[in-house]
């Protein structure tokens, strides 16, 4: 599991053997391939970029090219143990609608995203007066795919509004985990495990 991105490593560790999982925004399918090989997980993916889809299908993974904003409606309610949205929430047009679809399709949902309230982001805006360009948010304001920046506090509020409870949460700084205390200031990114009430 060492080759996985830190947030995916957290998710992979939690998913039990033989579970079913829909990875929304699965890229080339790194998480799916890992879980399929190590835990015999029934993994499916949705990915916007055709080259990523071709790479994933070429590896024998089941991935559909599609858009999280428009193509989730066809998946059956409760048809997966887990729905995963990793580093994708901030790129969709309607994060609230995508998250409620996630909670509908999966018995549980994993969501990971870069925290826009990290102190470095805050400092960049406060002292530089410019939109932050950081390690996790490397693009400039005009060419970034991240169209809905979100903080850990924002996400908690949205989950609450959607009637989802937070079962577990992990906070990461660099590649290692960080404490839940003052996470909104100190965590570079967060992983949440949600369940609909």
């Amino acid at each position, binding site marked *: 599991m060492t080759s996985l991105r830190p947030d995916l490593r957290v998710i992979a560790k939690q998913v039990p053997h033989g579970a079913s999982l829909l990875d929304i925004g699965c890229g080339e399918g790194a998480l799916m391939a890992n879980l399929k090989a190590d835990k015999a997980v029934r993994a499916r993916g949705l990915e916007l970029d*055709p080259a990523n*889809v071709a790479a994933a*299908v*070429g590896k*024998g993974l089941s991935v*559909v*090219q599609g858009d999280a904003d428009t193509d989730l409606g066809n*998946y*059956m309610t409760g048809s997966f143990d887990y729905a995963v949205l990793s580093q994708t929430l901030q790129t969709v047009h309607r994060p609230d609608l995508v998250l409620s679809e996630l909670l509908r399709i999966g018995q549980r949902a994993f969501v990971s995203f870069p925290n826009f309230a990290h102190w470095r982001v805050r400092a960049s805006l406060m002292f530089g007066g410019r939109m932050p360009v950081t390690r996790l948010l490397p693009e400039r304001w005009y060419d970034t795919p991240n169209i809905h920046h979100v903080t850990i506090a924002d996400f908690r509020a949205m989950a609450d509004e959607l009637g989802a409870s937070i079962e577990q949460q992990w906070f990461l700084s660099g590649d290692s985990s960080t404490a839940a205390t003052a996470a909104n200031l100190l965590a570079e990114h967060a992983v949440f495990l949600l369940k609909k009430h």
Partner: protein
Amino acid sequence: MNGDRGAAGTVASLGELGLDSGETLPALDVAYETYGTLNEDRSNAVLICHALTMDQYAASTHPVTGKPGWWLGMIGPGKPIDTNRAFVICSNVLGSCLGTSGPTSMAPDGAPWAMRFPVITIADMVRAQAKLIDHLGIDRLHAVVGGSMGGMQVLNWDALYPERLDNAVVIASAARHSAQNIAFHEVGRQAIMADPNWNGGDYHRGEAPSAGLAVARMAAHITYLSEAGLTEKFGRRLQDRDAKSFGFDADFQVESYLRHQGIAFVDRFDANSYLYITRAMDYFDLAEAHGGKLAAAFEGTSTRFCVVSFDTDWLYPTSESREIVHALNAAGAEVSFVELSSPFGHDAFLLESPELNRIVAGFLG
């Protein structure tokens, strides 16, 4: 009973075939080619379903035209459909004209069926293939693979015999024929029937309606390409001349090309077969039998699907493939889908494409 019948290659006589129309074909012949070897537990068979005017010669030389197999890039040793591992079967579809029963074959009265041949459907083609698979002693296919009309057959295989296939590859296809596709087919059919040589389909003793069939092919051929592809290949360039002739000769290269396509086609295809097969495609609507709900056609399937479309294909556009994918998702089926980029329109599925190869190879594993 098997027999070698010249251009048809190997032909299996498979007895009666009940049809969607309610009629029964008394003596079904299916001409087919195979590549690779069937393994001991008969689990490595891959059925290739061909498009409208193709034939069983998917990976071997066509006996009439002398051209290499139409899917040689896809099928062969070390190819995505690897004949070192798979036993590949490709049969001429019902209604066609290269050895399988169709309007050119003999009716019980000893004369060609011509327009007395019963109207057939895509499902009938699949039933004929299933009889061939039975004949070959194969219960379950590792995969059924096809592009265009071949993709329709693949979809229909899963609808009719979900327990008889493990994997399905549907390329540049659709779950039903659109109004635009029916319209183009009707132009082709009317061109054939307007040729005086067609003679109500009864031309086996005289001249074939070659002019009509050539026009049908020319019209259809345009739909297999893309505007960008035509512009790139021909532009407004003139054919073997420096100036316009102010006449109706083939001044433009694109005219000359289409005329050549039309003429070459009539040497290898039968006009009545063209009528029957285009009709079968027009009648195809997989959701029809399920109250218009496509997902219901896939309910409970355990088949893995791989669906591929091409971005410049306006005959079977990506939206049609997405309909299939959405229905498969709604049915909880295992599906992969990708839209590939190509300048070649619908024809892209027949051309060498490293991306398509990689996807099919990876999917079939």
